[in-house]
């Protein structure tokens, strides 16, 4: 909110959003109050206010959409951070404990994406692969953590005879209302069957209807993949001889879509949507401040998956080796910037430094920067999110209307083209 206040101009915001910045903030407070806790107190979007201990997997969190205010707030709140990754990401530096993981191609895994295609690939460690240092698969790491928790709980319990060390209340998510730490390992590993990555693949192959009938051996024989059976078609039947077409069930076989009307829905008469004038799809001007001339666009990187692989020397040598900002040639000339110069990108919120690349395909009112660069690539560890406030799009917070429910697919979105900046030669 601090960043939101600093970046956005009252006039522009009001003109675009039809509400003042104060009103927006009040609305957010209201929605948050409704949402706190596992199920959302008033059945909004769940969020957890008081978490202090974090176990994070491969989450370079400060390269994601917020600047230094968020970083400061997060680090103040986090009392203890355990971090699991196969590489030294920028975030790894802030962890209390670092747990080295094996990378994607050193572990057993099944990769699939039903909805796009009908195959599952088997990832497996190359034969005779030597582990790097103490790296373990994420499954093994979790099993070990669980074993330690049980060991400590049992020790305390034996010393004191007090059941509170092994029966932890969890009224919301546990059926019994408790977590039983004396049987935690058995529960977590299904009585020892599921201890590591290979176990996980075997159990998934045995128990997932859509994978049947398959084993690791049968996948190997076929060259490392399986074909999902007819049960895998979520929104379309799977035919043996035809490609998968999403939504055939709904569009041709007349099953209901999971919406209020059962059809593809463009009209949403949720209060908040009506209030925001978005009950039918509505394009709006961007909320970014108008006093800065360039919209900051951060398209997907060519070869990194967000920040994963961004630190690969091999790949970095195939671009410019460090963050670079693409600038229209005419703009560059006006600003006295040459290709390869260091430039400062700034707005009221903050600044970052990068190399200039003169790029004819860049519009004159924008600068382009591939996303995925982590803060540790930048001078002063100040990444490109220093100039971004990322207010949530209010529409994302509405709940309890038709398909607008909190669930696995919910992904709080922000505003498109939300920030603007100016640039100068350093």
């Amino acid at each position, binding site marked *: 909110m601090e960043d939101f206040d600093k970046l956005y101009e009252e006039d522009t915001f009001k003109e675009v959003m039809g509400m003042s910045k104060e009103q927006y903030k009040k609305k957010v407070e209201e929605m948050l109050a409704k949402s706190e806790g596992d199920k959302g107190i008033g059945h909004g979007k769940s969020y957890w206010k008081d978490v202090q201990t974090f176990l994070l997997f491969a989450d370079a969190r400060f390269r994601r959409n917020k600047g230094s205010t968020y970083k400061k707030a997060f680090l103040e709140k986090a009392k203890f951070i355990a971090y699991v990754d196969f590489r*030294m990401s920028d975030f*790894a*530096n802030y962890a209390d404990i670092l747990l080295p993981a094996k990378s994607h191609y050193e572990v057993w895994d099944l990769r699939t994406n039903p909805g796009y295609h009908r195959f599952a690939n088997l990832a497996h460690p190359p034969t005779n692969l030597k582990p790097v240092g103490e790296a373990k698969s994420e499954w093994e790491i979790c099993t070990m953590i669980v074993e330690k928790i049980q060991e400590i709980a049992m020790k305390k319990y034996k010393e004191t005879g007090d059941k509170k060390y092994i029966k932890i209340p969890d009224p919301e998510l546990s059926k019994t209302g408790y977590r039983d730490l004396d049987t935690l390992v058995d529960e977590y590993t299904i009585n020892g069957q599921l201890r590591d990555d290979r176990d996980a693949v075997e159990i998934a192959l045995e128990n997932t209807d859509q994978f049947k009938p398959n084993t690791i051996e049968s996948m190997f024989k076929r060259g490392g993949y399986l074909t999902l059976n007819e049960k895998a078609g979520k929104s379309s039947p799977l035919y043996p001889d035809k490609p998968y077409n999403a939504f055939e069930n709904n569009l041709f076989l007349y099953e209901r879509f999971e919406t209020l009307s059962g059809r593809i829905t463009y009209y949403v008469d949720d209060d908040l949507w009506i209030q925001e004038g978005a009950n039918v799809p509505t394009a709006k001007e961007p909320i970014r401040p108008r006093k800065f001339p360039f919209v900051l666009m951060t398209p997907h990187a*060519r*070869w990194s998956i967000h920040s994963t692989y961004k*630190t690969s*020397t*091999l*790949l*970095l*040598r*195939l*671009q*410019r*080796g*460090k963050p670079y900002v693409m600038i*229209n*040639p*005419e703009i560059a000339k006006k600003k006295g910037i040459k290709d390869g110069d260091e430039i400062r990108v700034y707005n009221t919120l903050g600044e970052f430094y990068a*190399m200039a*690349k*003169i*790029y*004819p*395909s*860049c*519009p*004159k009112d924008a600068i382009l920067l591939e996303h995925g660069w*982590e803060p*540790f*690539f*930048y*001078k002063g*560890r100040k990444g490109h999110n220093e100039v971004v406030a990322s207010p949530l799009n209010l529409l994302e917070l509405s709940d309890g209307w038709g398909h607008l429910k909190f669930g696995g697919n919910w992904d709080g979105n922000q505003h498109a083209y939300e920030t603007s900046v100016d640039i100068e030669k350093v």
Partner: protein
Amino acid sequence: MSKRQLAMVMDLNKCIGCQTCTVACKTQWTNRNGREYMYWNNVETHPGAGYPRNWMEAGGGFDQDGNLKDGIIPDMVLDYGVPWDYNHDELFNGSLLQTKSDLEWGPNWDEDVGGGEYPNSYFFYIPRICNHCSNPGCLAACPREAIFKREQDGIVLVDLERCQGYRYCIAGCPYKKIYFNPKISKSEKCIFCFPRVEKGLPPACAHQCVGRIRWVGFLDDEEGQVYKLVHKYKVALPLRPDFGTQPNVYYVPPLFDPPKFDDNMAPIENSRRIPMEYLELLFGKEVHQALETLRKEMEKRARGEESELMDILIAYSHRDMFRLDNNYYQQEAAKKGLKGSEFFKIIDQRYLQGANTQRVEIKDYTFHEKVLPLPQKEKHGGH
């Protein structure tokens, strides 16, 4: 001329510049032992300076009368770019991730830059490997006759035992696709993945290509798609044929570029952004006919008619795209009564012997000396 000639065709309309081919080649052959700066396969943006920088202006090749032209050796820092390393080890102590050397230039430095002005800017990619030319400039320039062309398939290789690191080959190759290895002081280049090819597998760059833009096969195999693209339909053209080396990598020129926009941002019908002069420079006058054929065949297909050419370009199956003439190499080996591990001896004894070659001590280490005049031929004979 060799008895037969392997060739590769690349369809520039489908190259997305992902560099998967570059990485396939690099991890297979050039990430070690003095080859770090070499990109036997590189993908560059055109129009652009490419890799090494301004290679098209660096001389070499032959003039109209078939005489070898002078050429230069590109500069390591400014033209190839010194491959930079990072302080990955220091990250643990909270350091920033930084390069250990200054960044001057690299193999893909002007990625996506191209030409034109927004919104009518344009660019396209050209992946480049050694062309395994029928009249190699590198071979002609070498005073030691250390470069040879294999009889069986026309692959051009360096005999490292004979190579003395004079680097005339680099000046002589107009594509700058042969490189000096500073660790052993000898020249090295793309080997068309011959150990793979002899086993029936295409070169790694072609096999890994995400866009499925590459075909590999023998030019005299009339059933093969390479033959059809090059000779039957004549839509695949050599790059810079005016350099006179008769390259054996062929390109389907870019047919698709978005139309230009007028001042009101409305597309202008039948306009092209990529200037035809530039395509002519790259592929010669034949480019007009090639583009015409492509257009016609596409229209045919759009009308619902058959088009063999379009079927080939869709690249349905690797089996058809890579035709290494089932067991050609096995038969060659059998003729000589070779089998098993002797297999490789058929054609590349000279190359394999070079595996343990000694470093050459070069007294006159003139990397910076730019123009290399043509050398006198040494008498063929002992080392």
